[in-house]
C-alpha cells in the first residue's frame, strides 16, 4: 500500500529574501533580487547582473559547529545549511543529539548543478597547478564533492536513511523533491529533507555567459533584466541560493500533530532522449508534454482542476514553447488556461537551486492562498498571446484560494520534472 506524502517544513535562501516569512513577503511584493555585479563588469561579462542571497553570517554560527565553519568557503554549502536547518526546525523536528544513534527513518536528497565551480576552487586549484597540493589543505573534497551540501546538512541533522545528491541541471531541485517523495511513498523512509543549491561566482556564470544565453541588455537596469514571457525577453539572469522542504509520511505528520502545508499527489521525471527536436541544450516538446501528463495521471485529478502553474519560464526563446506545451498537456487554452506565474522574474534563474527555491514559493501560495506576480512584463510575447489570455499572467499579487498547483522544471540534457500539490484540509481529503 502506497503511503501518502505531505510537506511539513520549508526553508529558503533566495536572491530576494532569506527565510520563508521574508520570501513570502518578497513574492507578494514582486521584489526583485537582481543586482549589478562589479566583479562581472570588471571581467567584461556580457551579463553583469545576478541574484545573490544576502544572509547574515552570524546565523551560520548558530547552526554550523565552529570547527567546521572555520574553513567552510563554498557559498552553496552555506546556503544549504541555512535552508536545510530552517526547514527541519520549521517542521518541528530536532537535530539528533551527538551521542545518540542517527534517525534511521529520515534521509536527505539535496541536489546541485555544479558544487565545485564555486569561486573557492580557484584558491585551491592554484596549489595543484603549482605542484604544491599539500598547501591546498584537507577540506577541498568535502566542499567540492557533489554530495557536499547534503553531507554538511547531515553533520548538523544526524539522519540515517539515504543521504544523497541528485543532479539534472535546471531540473535538479524539482527532481530532488520527487526522489524524496518516492522514497516515502514506497515506505522506505518516513521523513525526507529535499532540496537543492547552486553557488554564486564567476566560474558558474562565466560558463553560461560563454553560451550567449544570458541577458545582456540590462546591465544598467538590473531589476528589469529577468523578463520571462515578455515580448522583449533577452535571456536569463543567473541566480544563486538554496531551497529545502521536509516531506513526511502522512501518518507520521498526523501523529505528531505537525503543520501540514500541502500534499504531494503526483511527481514524474523523464527525458526526451535528445531526439525529436530535443538536444543537450533544448527540450523536446513531446517529452515535456508526456511528463506533465504522467504527473496528472498519478495525481488522479482532471486537468481542469489545476488552479495555478508555476512555470519553468526562464526568459529565453523557450518560454513561448513552454506555454504551448502546457496548453497541449492540460488541454486548456485561452481563457480556460490556468493562472501561470514565473518566479524567475524576481529571483533570476538559480540553476540547480531553482526548482527547490521555487517549490517553496509554490507551497506558500497553496498554503496561504495567493498568486505572486510576474514582474517586468511590459508586453506578453505575441506567441504566448496566441495560446493564452492576457489575464492568466497576473502582474500584481492576487489573493486566490488554490486547490491544486502544478510545478515543472526542465534542464539541459533534455530532462523534465513535474509535481502536483494539493491543498491540505483538516479532514484529510
Amino acid at each position, binding site marked *: 500500500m502506497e503511503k501518502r506524502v505531505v510537506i511539513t517544513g520549508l526553508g529558503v535562501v533566495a536572491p530576494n529574501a532569506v527565510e520563508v516569512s521574508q520570501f513570502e513577503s518578497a513574492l507578494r511584493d514582486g521584489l526583485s533580487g537582481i543586482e549589478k555585479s562589479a566583479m562581472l563588469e570588471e571581467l567584461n561579462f556580457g551579463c553583469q547582473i545576478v541574484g545573490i542571497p544576502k544572509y547574515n553570517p552570524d546565523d551560520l554560527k548558530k547552526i554550523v559547529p565552529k*570547527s567546521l565553519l572555520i574553513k567552510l568557503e563554498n557559498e552553496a554549502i552555506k546556503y544549504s545549511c541555512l535552508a536545510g536547518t530552517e526547514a527541519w526546525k520549521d517542521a518541528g523536528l530536532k537535530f539528533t543529539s551527538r551521542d545518540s544513534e542517527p534517525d534511521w527513518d529520515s534521509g536527505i536528497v539535496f541536489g546541485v548543478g555544479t558544487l565545485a565551480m564555486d569561486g573557492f576552487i580557484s584558491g585551491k586549484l592554484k596549489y595543484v597547478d603549482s605542484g604544491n597540493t599539500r598547501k591546498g589543505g*584537507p577540506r577541498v573534497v568535502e566542499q567540492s564533492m557533489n554530495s557536499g551540501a547534503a553531507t554538511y546538512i547531515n553533520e548538523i541533522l544526524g539522519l540515517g536513511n539515504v543521504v544523497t545528491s541528485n543532479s539534472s541541471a535546471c531540473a535538479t531541485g524539482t527532481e530532488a523533491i520527487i526522489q524524496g517523495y518516492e522514497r516515502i511513498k514506497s515506505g522506505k523512509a518516513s521523513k525526507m529533507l529535499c532540496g537543492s543549491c547552486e553557488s554564486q561566482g564567476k566560474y558558474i556564470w562565466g560558463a553560461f555567459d560563454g553560451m550567449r544565453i544570458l541577458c545582456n541588455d540590462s546591465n544598467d537596469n538590473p531589476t528589469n533584466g529577468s523578463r520571462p514571457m515578455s515580448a522583449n525577453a533577452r535571456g536569463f539572469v543567473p541566480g544563486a541560493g538554496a531551497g529545502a522542504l521536509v516531506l513526511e509520511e502522512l501518518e507520521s505528520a498526523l501523529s505528531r500533530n505537525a503543520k501540514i502545508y500541502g500534499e504531494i499527489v503526483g511527481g514524474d521525471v523523464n527525458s526526451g532522449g535528445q531526439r525529436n527536436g530535443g538536444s543537450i541544450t533544448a527540450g523536446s516538446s513531446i517529452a515535456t508534454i508526456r511528463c506533465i501528463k504522467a504527473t496528472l495521471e498519478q495525481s488522479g485529478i482532471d486537468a481542469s482542476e489545476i488552479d495555478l502553474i508555476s512555470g519553468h519560464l526562464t526568459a529565453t526563446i523557450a518560454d513561448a514553447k513552454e506555454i504551448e506545451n502546457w496548453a497541449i498537456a492540460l488541454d486548456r487554452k485561452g481563457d480556460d488556461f490556468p493562472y501561470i506565474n514565473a518566479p524567475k522574474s524576481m529571483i533570476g534563474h538559480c540553476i540547480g537551486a531553482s526548482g527547490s527555491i521555487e517549490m517553496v514559493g509554490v507551497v506558500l501560495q497553496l498554503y496561504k492562498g495567493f498568486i505572486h506576480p510576474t514582474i517586468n512584463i511590459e508586453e506578453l510575447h505575441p506567441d504566448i498571446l496566441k495560446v493564452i489570455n492576457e489575464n492568466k499572467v497576473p502582474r500584481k499579487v492576487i489573493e486566490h484560494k488554490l486547490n491544486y498547483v502544478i510545478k515543472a522544471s526542465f534542464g539541459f540534457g533534455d530532462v523534465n520534472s513535474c509535481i502536483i500539490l494539493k491543498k491540505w484540509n483538516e479532514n484529510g481529503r
Partner: protein
Amino acid sequence: MDDKEIYAKLKVIIEPYLDDEVDMESLTLDSHLINELNINSAHVIDIVLDIENEFDIEIDDDSIMKMETIQNVLNIIKEKSTEQLS
C-alpha cells in the same frame, strides 16, 4: 622561542578547531588531539598548515603521524624550527 611562547601561539591556532563543548581551559600538554579534543583527522592537517604559516616551517608527513598530543606537536615545532634554521 621558548616552550611557553610556542605553547601560547599553538593554543591560538588550535582554539578555532575545537567545538563548543570542549573547554579551552581544560587543554593541557597531554591532551590528545583526536581522542580528547575531538579534532577530526582532516582538521589536524589544517592545523598543520596553520602551524607551518605561523612558525615558517615545513612539517613532513612522518611528523604529522606523530602528532597525537599537544606535547608531541610542541616537540615537532621545536625540532623543525631548529632543523630548518640551520
